[in-house]
């Protein structure tokens, strides 16, 4: 089903210039921890997109794990407002 849609989208996307896409992809590349270390020119756009998806997935997983741990910790920890203030100052 999406091949037709992608074809029409191709004619649309060609209006968005290659340069613009490459520029954005290189910006994304600077953010990703893996591709930033490597040489800039050698990484293809598809690779960058793949890395982006993988990175977002791993970040989601980390957040989920942290949420679980925090949920357990919150159950066992009592927290008054003064304690919360201390914790907040420690976080900074």
């Amino acid at each position, binding site marked *: 089903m999406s*091949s037709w849609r992608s074809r029409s989208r191709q004619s649309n996307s060609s209006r968005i210039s290659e340069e613009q896409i490459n520029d954005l992809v290189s910006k*994304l590349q600077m953010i990703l921890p893996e591709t930033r270390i490597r040489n800039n020119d050698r990484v293809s756009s598809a690779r960058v997109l793949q890395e982006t998806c993988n*990175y977002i997935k791993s970040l*989601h997983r980390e957040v989920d794990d942290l*949420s679980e741990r925090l*949920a357990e910790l919150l159950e066992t920890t*009592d927290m008054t407002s003064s304690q919360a203030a201390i*914790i907040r100052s420690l*976080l900074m």
Partner: protein
Amino acid sequence: MEAESSTSNQQRKRKRSASESSEKPAQFTWRTDKEHRLYSSKLLEALRRVRSGSGSPRTDPPRSRAVREAADRALAISARGRTRWSRAILSNRSIKLKSNRIRVPCPARPKRAELERIHSADQEKKKSVVLQSKAKVLGRLVPGCKKLSFPTLLEEASDYIKALEMQVKAMSALTEILSMIGGGTEGAPGNGMLQEGVASAGAGAGTSTGTGTDSIPPPA
């Protein structure tokens, strides 16, 4: 943007925000300390609400999901409405839940089929088909970005990643602190002082606020 070869986190944070603010003054950066502080406070407040909201004992999965949602919501609020993903989080929170997770594994197959169908096309088209399918996957990962144009999607994704990194950092810092307070048997004597300080603040004494260097008996 060129001199990004520094290794320490702090330096990278400063350089990144400096170069970004010089190139694009309108571009918001997630990496400043100020944003981190703001997010941490919001996170703490949201988590306290989660805690006080569900007083009765419940099974863990709903609780951790509540924590995750509170953290995401706090993150989205910190974005102050500039980005689509943040607005999508805030508006879709009640609807989203599990349905999104089930849908994710699907798109791997259609990509191959698409490539084979456009077998006769030139390199250019093939390349953009691959990009399109990957962009679709990406659009599913970033909330609220399924039908965006390619450039917008990339921009949203880069902002989302930076925000997620900050979220991870804030949540791990909070986890560390809470585990030091609650756990008590982990490692350094510094924990004992911290525990004493926070515990006495909770009891209302309020004199030692965690920075005390007095002789406090180590935890038994």
